[in-house]
């Protein structure tokens, strides 16, 4: 029993985090809003060079052969800077799906190799979302159709852009028709893979939500320490201190649920639904509270476009409802709890482990 990350995991995360903090500043995010695609090819290539798109690609396909637990801290770091690029969806959500199929499907194998090197990009759709993020910059789309999953070249679909409140997000309704050629998998296996995809999607969203919450608290602490009213920093008012302390409590207790979810997805995927739903709900609550208390603590400044806070708030509002909204995830928890045979109680935090 050891609920810590390894030094390697922490070190790798730190190096990526430093890159992100330096390159993906609020100014850089705003700059990407002005681009037609909203995406910086240069930044994507830098991320590829850091190896992050290759992390979950199996070694035999030129990747690093790592897992979701290795990636979760990076996903959190992506949230901390509100990264516009679809790194989490690509590396954490889509890649493991391709990896599962790559042994028997050369299209997936070849695509994986090119994701690792940055030559190809993919986008991924799921019934939980309706819309597909970043389909416009993808070479291929992974799309569900009933119990099937299809791999469709972008030039075979029609994309209709959908404007989000978050100018960083690029969402698309996808018009396409399934055919035998594009079908990767179907039947019960398709259902299982779609379910696993949802769990990875929700895990990635939860990680980013916690990162966003942390960033908002940090910004707000700084703002309220600098801004003076009545001859003292506004952050010295107990009401604002308690706003931030309440966020800290939510964040600190969402984190371990996130890490447990990442562990469970990578090591015990059959038990992942419960762990992932818990993390998604907890992370969403932390991020929504951080948004609410941060704008309130900023006062009128927080309500402006020029204050960077909204970059983070809007992402939080969007991700809270992406890859399954709170109601969906709470209802999964509820169903699970209502089972009279549910394994719950003090000795079952990590499942039934008495031999």
């Amino acid at each position, binding site marked *: 029993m050891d609920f810590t990350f390894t030094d390697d995991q922490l070190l790798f995360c730190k190096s990526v985090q430093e890159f992100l903090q330096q390159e993906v500043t609020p100014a850089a995010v705003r700059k990407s809003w002005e681009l037609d695609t909203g995406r910086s090819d240069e930044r994507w290539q830098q991320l590829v060079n850091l190896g992050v798109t290759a992390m979950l690609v199996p070694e035999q396909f030129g990747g690093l052969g790592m897992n979701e637990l290795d990636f979760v801290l990076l996903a959190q770091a992506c949230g901390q800077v509100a990264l516009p690029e679809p790194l989490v969806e690509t590396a954490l959500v889509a890649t493991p799906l391709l990896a599962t199929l790559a042994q028997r499907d050369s299209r997936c194998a070849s695509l994986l190799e090119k994701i690792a090197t940055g030559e190809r990009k993919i986008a991924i759709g799921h019934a939980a979302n309706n819309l597909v993020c970043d389909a416009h910059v993808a070479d291929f789309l992974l799309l569900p159709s009933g119990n099937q999953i299809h791999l469709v070249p972008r030039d075979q679909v029609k994309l209709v852009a959908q404007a989000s409140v978050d100018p960083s997000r690029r969402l698309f309704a996808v018009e396409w028709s399934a055919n035998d050629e594009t079908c990767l998998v179907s039947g019960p296996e398709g259902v299982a893979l779609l379910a696993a995809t949802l769990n990875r999607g929700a895990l990635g969203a939860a990680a980013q939500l916690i990162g966003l919450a942390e960033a908002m608290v940090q910004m707000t602490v700084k703002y309220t320490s600098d801004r003076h009213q009545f001859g003292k920093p506004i952050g010295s008012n107990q009401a604002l201190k308690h706003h931030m302390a309440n966020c800290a409590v939510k964040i600190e207790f969402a984190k371990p649920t996130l890490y447990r979810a990442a562990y469970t997805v990578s090591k015990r995927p059959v038990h992942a639904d419960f762990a992932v739903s818990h993390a998604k709900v907890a992370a969403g609550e932390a991020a929504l509270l951080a948004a609410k208390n941060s704008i309130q603590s900023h006062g009128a400044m927080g309500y402006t476009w020029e204050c960077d806070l909204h970059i983070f708030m809007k992402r939080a509002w969007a991700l809270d409802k992406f890859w399954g*909204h709170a109601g969906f995830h709470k209802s999964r928890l509820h169903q699970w709890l209502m089972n009279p045979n549910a394994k719950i109680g003090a000795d079952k935090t990590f499942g039934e482990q008495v031999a």
Partner: protein
Amino acid sequence: MDLNYTAEQIAFRKEVRSWLEQHVPARPLQSFDTKEGFEQHRQWEQTLAKGNWGMVTWPKEYGGRGCNLIEWLIFEEEYYRAQAPLRVNQNGIFLLGPTLMEYGTPEQKARFITKMASGEEMWAQGWSEPGAGSDMAAIRSKAIRDGDEYVINGQKVWSTRAVFADWVFCIFRTDPASDKHHGLSFIFVPLNAPGVTVRPIPQLNGLPGFAEIFFDDVRVPVANRLGNEGQGWNIAMSTAGFERGLMLRSPARFQETAKRLVALYREHRNDIVDLSIEDAVVKSFMDAEAYALATYQTASRLMSGGKIGPESSVNKIFWSELDQHMHETAMSILAARAELLPHSSAAGDVGTWLDGFLFAQSGPIYAGTNEIQRNIIAERMLGMPRK
């Protein structure tokens, strides 16, 4: 206690309803935070003025109808029921108008009130400064007397409507040696005066709902000062009282939002798996009702000669948190579609909920943050110790 409307009140309601049915624009206007939308809303104010519905609470002598508070509530109920446009003239109607009537000279009233009532001139509000937000007495912008004029230098911020309005009312420091709430005066400035620069401040939705105003040797006649020199703080406080008070947010607004929320919930009821939403919808409705009841209660009390006190702080907290709660609940019902701007093809019945959600974020902040309001309640209403 008699919770029946009188025959006159019912007749008044019918008159309002019938006029609105004939005049409310068939299509929603654009946001008044756009140039076109502002002019559309100004037009609407002029339409209201022509029907004599622009300033129902103002005395008849100033172009109003002399409505009492109950009649005002009825007017508002019908106004929101009819989904009539938001009031771009709000600063004039509720903030400056009543203040002018109390403190203005006959000349000022003649000059300013008439054009305000007709919808010809729109007013912005200019109190806050970069270093003077919650601590409004920290104002540093100066208006220095020079013969028959004031020479104004400094900066205002969070000035609502300033981007497209014609005039702004401000408080400036007229006694440079003074500090805190002494030595301030209440002064009107035309926004097209030489030396005035208006920098729009875009809000969360990207539209410039407020602005910074820079004053660089701006000259205005002394006749633009309301009240005496040095009386600015008291006048502003009485205005702020109106702002926070009964009339800033009429209950009708929230009751109609609650009604729309109930309808949204009914439509989606079968897809909703989050049981807390059901509770949140009921709670939203209850609170919108409670706000209406409390307002009727206060209105009745004021009409029997009572005064409004710290309950304006209680109101401010209640409606602003209610508005947030209702919009959060709607966003939860809309789920993954909640983030979409309404013109997106996949937006479906998202409607104006997102707009309303963004706007609701400002409620607990403006007109005195809710933290300040809670201090006021604790200290002035409950008598807890300041220090």
